[in-house]
């Protein structure tokens, strides 16, 4: 693995977009994972945000996040299609190759697989002319799809060239989901891998999962699931995943720290992952 495989995520950092981009670049990263808020919340408007990203010299890892999209019907479906189109257009303007879509948490959403598959196929087709791929992620508190295996079965069933999977270490670990699922996932259908950890062994409720996911994640190497995070990356690599990794670290404390310090932690995490992988993949020397 190389440093250029990792993208720093703007959601971990406080402050204006330009400051985040400068800090990410200064820390040595070459990629940035962008959030819609970075763009639409820019004080000078979206074109200024797009220009800042393009001027930063950073490659865009992806764009997030479309929520509660699939399984709706009637006017709710039409409403979400409008939201999706808007996000796809922003992703296109930013040169983001991937739009991240989280599994729905909506009580209005059906879990009927034909409907979910049809909606995701539609989104993936909408994304084709814009040169954006769609990565579907199982949110650990998703209403119907909340395990990596659920998301994979949906992506596999959809069978759409422009629809793939986002593997997120937090959601996999938080649900105590089997990392073994990665052994049946087609590595070519993994469009993005997001890495983070958290600070306690187990999460006991849906509410705690949401709270931890949104406020208390840490970088890989800083949490208590080091072996599992390293194993997840190792399996992705072993299976032939050659795509990008981004740090999906929502953490309120990091939002109160200088950007350079947070980026430094992220860089330490890159080195930690690379070290863990290198250690295990050294060839075993045979005697004699």
């Amino acid at each position: 693995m190389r440093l250029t495989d990792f993208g720093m995520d703007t959601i971990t950092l406080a402050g204006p977009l330009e400051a985040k981009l400068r800090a990410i670049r200064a820390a040595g990263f070459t990629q940035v994972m962008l959030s819609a808020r970075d763009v639409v919340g820019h004080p000078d408007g979206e074109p200024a945000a797009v220009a800042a990203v393009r001027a930063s010299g950073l490659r865009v890892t992806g764009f997030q996040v479309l929520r509660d999209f699939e399984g709706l019907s009637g006017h709710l479906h039409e409403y979400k299609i409008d939201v999706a189109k808007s996000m796809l257009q922003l992703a296109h303007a930013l040169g983001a190759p991937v739009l991240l879509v989280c599994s729905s948490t909506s009580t209005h959403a059906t879990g009927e697989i034909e409907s979910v598959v049809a909606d995701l196929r539609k989104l993936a087709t909408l994304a084709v002319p814009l040169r954006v791929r769609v990565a579907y992620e199982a949110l650990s508190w998703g209403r119907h799809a909340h395990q990596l295996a659920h998301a994979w079965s949906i992506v596999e069933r959809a069978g759409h060239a422009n629809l793939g999977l986002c593997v997120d270490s937090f959601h996999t670990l938080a649900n105590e989901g089997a990392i073994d699922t990665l052994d049946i996932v087609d590595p070519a259908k993994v469009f993005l891998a997001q890495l983070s950890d958290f600070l306690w062994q187990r999460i006991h409720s849906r509410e705690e999962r949401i709270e931890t996911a949104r406020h208390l994640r840490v970088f890989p190497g800083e949490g208590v699931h080091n072996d599992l995070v390293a194993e997840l990356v190792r399996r992705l690599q072993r299976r032939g995943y050659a795509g990008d990794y981004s740090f999906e670290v929502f953490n309120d404390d990091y939002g109160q720290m200088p950007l350079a310090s947070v980026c430094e932690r992220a860089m330490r995490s890159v080195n930690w992952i690379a070290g863990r992988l290198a250690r295990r993949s050294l060839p075993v020397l045979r005697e004699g």
Partner: protein
Amino acid sequence: MTVSERNPTPSNRLGLDGLEFVEFTTTQPLVLGALLEKMGFRAVARHRSREVLLYRQGGMNLVVNAHPGVVRAAAGDEPVTAVGAMAFRVADAGEAHRQTVALGAWDLPSRAAAMELIIPGIRGAGDSHIYFVDRHRDFSIYDVDFTPIVGADPHPPALAGLHYFGLVQTAFPERTAAWLEFYQSLFGFTVLPSGQFFGVVNKGVLLESPCRKFFLQLIEPPDDSGDVAWEEGLLRIGLGTATVPAAIVALQARGIVFVDRGPIRSTDRGALTQLYPGGVSFELVHSELGA
């Protein structure tokens, strides 16, 4: 109209029935018009409200759209010509539009002025559009929006039996699969087996329309393309003829130059014209589709 025309087969849900027209967008309509005339097309009608001319040759309708604002400006006022749209004949244009939008196509805002036909369309590759036309039997869409050019033969014959064979679309690297999915899921195109080609430009992947009347060829940039600017869009049209050598002779006599070097040489299977100003070229392909 027969029952079967209104009830498309399962593999042809939209009732596709060939290409109604191909549109070029250009900042140089006179230069492009002169080239089209050399290729055997004749200007037959003028749009009522827009800077648009209709050219025709045999069964091929070709629209040249030079209306201000339709062509994306190039750097340094370079002349720009592009294949801006392809129009599919379908059983019911409104229904085709509704179905494709429901499956994930981008709707296009109508450009029709008062008393003009609304031709429903969706977004295609790059800046190009895909239109749906269903009025190709009862009456012509051109009767409504166009006025005939005085003295012009409204139905000029085809040179050497030329007819639309298909279009070539460019795709960014590793994007062919996504575009195959686009054409398969929205319209029911079929991917031809790897290595099956027509003509002389044997690369990329071929898709056959569900009506089996035309083809799309998807090509990615060659590995050695280096810094060559590559965009997604419709690159050129392919013209079919049952007699490629006769078509070459007839077109050469009109001043058309064919590429004859390297891997691209004129044969009985096909030929490729040189690149004309604005980046326009035409491909000839052996085909019995016009019979």
